[in-house]
């Protein structure tokens, strides 16, 4: 009976504390990697969202300008209507929200900033038209999840278009 008892005591079928601690360690280690993969995937989806929207918004602005829309409060285009002139040069800025729609220019925490730069190449006094190099670029202001780099350029579109010379007055407040 004593021998049988000793055999039972020596036979260890269960988990030891060390084994369980090691298992928990491995699970934690794997979960950190999994979390990292999902954060990367989420950020990549956000990069795709930014790029998709930036392309559509930039192209829409370019199409509106080429259709004769003015930049400033008189414009029918909601983005061009909210554009504010930065300096004496023809550089306009629009603050955009998460949905890539304009927000109030005084709003500090905008998600994106769009710059529209017009550079006159050639003007014709007869037709009141001018050939402009138009540059539309969109920068991301908010941070990606767990990333520290800011003000990243999302997309830039350049084209030459013939525009009416009266492209809107100084719209800065």
């Amino acid at each position, binding site marked *: 009976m004593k021998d049988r008892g000793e055999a039972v005591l020596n036979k260890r079928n269960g988990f030891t504390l060390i084994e369980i601690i090691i298992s928990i360690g491995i699970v934690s280690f794997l*979960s950190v990697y999994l979390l990292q993969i*999902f954060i990367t995937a989420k950020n990549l*989806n956000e990069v795709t969202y930014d790029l998709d929207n930036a392309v559509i*918004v930039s192209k829409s602005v370019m199409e509106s300008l*080429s*259709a004769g829309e003015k930049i400033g409060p008189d414009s029918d285009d909601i983005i061009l209507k909210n554009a504010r002139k930065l300096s004496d040069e023809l550089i306009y800025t629009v603050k955009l929200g998460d949905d890539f729609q304009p927000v109030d220019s005084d709003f500090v925490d905008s998600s994106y900033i769009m710059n529209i730069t017009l550079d006159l190449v050639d003007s014709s006094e007869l037709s009141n038209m001018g050939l402009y190099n138009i540059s539309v670029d969109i920068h991301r202001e908010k941070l990606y999840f767990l990333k520290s780099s800011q003000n990243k350029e999302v997309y830039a579109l350049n084209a030459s278009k013939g525009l009416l010379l009266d492209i809107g007055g100084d719209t800065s407040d």
Partner: protein
Amino acid sequence: MEGIVELMKKNNKGVSKVEVILVMILILLMGLAVFTLVVSSSDTYKNVIDEKENLSNLRIAASYIDNKIKQSDEQSSIYIKNNPINGEASIVIVQRVDNENYETWIYLSDKMLKEAYIKQNQEFADDMSFDIASIEEFVPSIKDDIMEITISGNKASDTFSKRYLKINLKSNEG
């Protein structure tokens, strides 16, 4: 059995109740951690894939509509008409081929952006069209030579899924 208990008392090699409870709690914790990890990973994976598919469908739809309109370079060949299938606004592009007018209908039906290519004034049914992309909303309108199109994807999506396209129809004039 008495022998075992006797031996445990003698050698002090047994497993105390506290140790058993501690080990059981640890096993339970580990099981919970693994279960939570598997469930949350599968949920996150599903969300990421759904979001990716949603973005992809919106991109395909936007790019397709833009290309189709830019391709039709004839003057006044693009209209907005209500389609005969569900009566919603659709884009109609008219092209003349071999002295005959053909229409390309781009419309939304059953949450699917579709295209149908038919002879002008020919009656068309849903089965004559082919699918372009899965979207939930498609609202085209024309204002002062600018076509404005609103498309939106899965409304349950985390990110804003509306896209506002603008296309200058004047630049299509030949």
